[in-house]
């Protein structure tokens, strides 16, 4: 979609294709893909590469027993096929092709078991005008952030990889303006100071993979907001 201006870097998308992006970052990419056909194409190309790389591996045969076993199972699968089909089609029918930019991505809906940002149990943080929800994630850290309209975040910087997807509203910083659907893909130590747009709260999903660069509790709160 052309209105999305900021995308994950192609190395990030490649790792997502490879299945090697830590869960917290992969979640952000997965949510972005649901509204970005450009990145979906890139991920698909990365999966083609994966298929070709897999084909180039030195084959390691399964045991004869496994082969016999699969042959036997084909018989059973033939009989059970029709009922399995209807489930498959229902699942594939639920794909939304053109999600609205402010709608909650379905991956998040699945994770949160909710589809309304305003009804989520937002927790206040020590930073003024910043609320958050920490998402359960054992590879890296993921959280939803809600920055009050017009709120200026403290200047900060980080190490490690961090992806931030704007889900509603937006912010501006030294890099530019970030609107719903945009992703900030950051790995640097540059400082930045995001300022939420005036017209509405900015809601975003931030994922990071690195151990915290700063140990302090204040830094931990601000960490997901990325070093630019």
């Amino acid at each position, binding site marked *: 979609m052309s209105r999305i201006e900021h995308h994950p*870097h*192609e*190395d990030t998308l*490649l*790792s*997502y294709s*490879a*299945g*090697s*992006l*830590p*869960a917290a970052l*992969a*979640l952000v*990419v*997965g949510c972005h893909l649901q509204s970005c*056909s450009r990145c979906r*194409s*890139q991920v*698909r*190309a990365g*999966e*083609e*590469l*994966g*298929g*070709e*790389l*897999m*084909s*180039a*591996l*030195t*084959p*390691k*045969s*399964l*045991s004869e027993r*496994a*082969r016999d*076993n*699969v*042959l036997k199972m*084909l018989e059973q*699968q*033939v009989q059970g096929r029709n009922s*399995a*089909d209807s489930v*498959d089609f229902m*699942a*594939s029918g639920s*794909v939304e092709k053109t999600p609205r930019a402010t709608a909650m991505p379905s*991956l998040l809906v*699945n994770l949160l078991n909710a589809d309304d940002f305003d009804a989520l149990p937002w927790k206040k943080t020590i930073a003024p005008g910043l609320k958050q929800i920490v998402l359960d*994630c*054992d*590879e890296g850290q993921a959280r939803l952030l809600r920055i009050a309209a017009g709120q200026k975040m403290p200047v900060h910087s980080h190490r*490690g*990889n961090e992806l931030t997807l704007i889900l509603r509203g937006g912010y501006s910083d030294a890099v530019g303006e970030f609107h719903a659907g945009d992703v900030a893909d950051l*790995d640097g130590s540059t400082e930045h100071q995001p300022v939420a747009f005036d017209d509405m709260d900015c809601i975003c999903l931030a994922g990071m993979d690195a151990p915290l660069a700063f140990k302090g509790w204040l830094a931990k709160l601000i960490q997901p907001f990325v070093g630019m």
Partner: protein
Amino acid sequence: MADNAAEPERNGEFWADCMARVAESRDKSSFMLLFDHFSPRVNAYLLGQGAASSMAEDLAQEALLALWNKAHLYHRDKAAVSTWLFRVARNLWIDKLRKQRGIAYESDENLEETTDSEVRLNADGERLKAVLDTLPLNQAQVVYKSYYEGKSHSEIAEETGMPLGSVKSSLRLAIKAFRQHFGESGV
């Protein structure tokens, strides 16, 4: 590849034809051709990811059975069989041993989603391997570790002693090289 000489005709078109016969007439002999070709490769992929041999064998069987059961969802104009199977195997592995990443991927039922990219049915592993061989060592290494070992950028940086920024730029250069060899196709 050890067995390649024995099957010179077996390119992407050939495998897509096998899939069509499985979908249309539940043709077991076509399926077993697919099985005998792809299951050792899926198995090798899973072993490379660190799966124990019994787990790899179970998951490889499961991936190939998914191919049998969902052959009717396969569209040759959307993806090569190897792409489709890679995605199934990757997702199975993530579901089994890396549960957390499962939160980040659409289910396999959405495999046929529309993309604008052109499918390169005739690309095969041999050609790709040749490109890999021409890459500088550090580029080949980051591709290898990303795909075969499932390592994140940070993990690769830690293991190789490369700075994180170099890991990322090496990957980008490798992507560029693959594109040059396999055509642009909007990637």
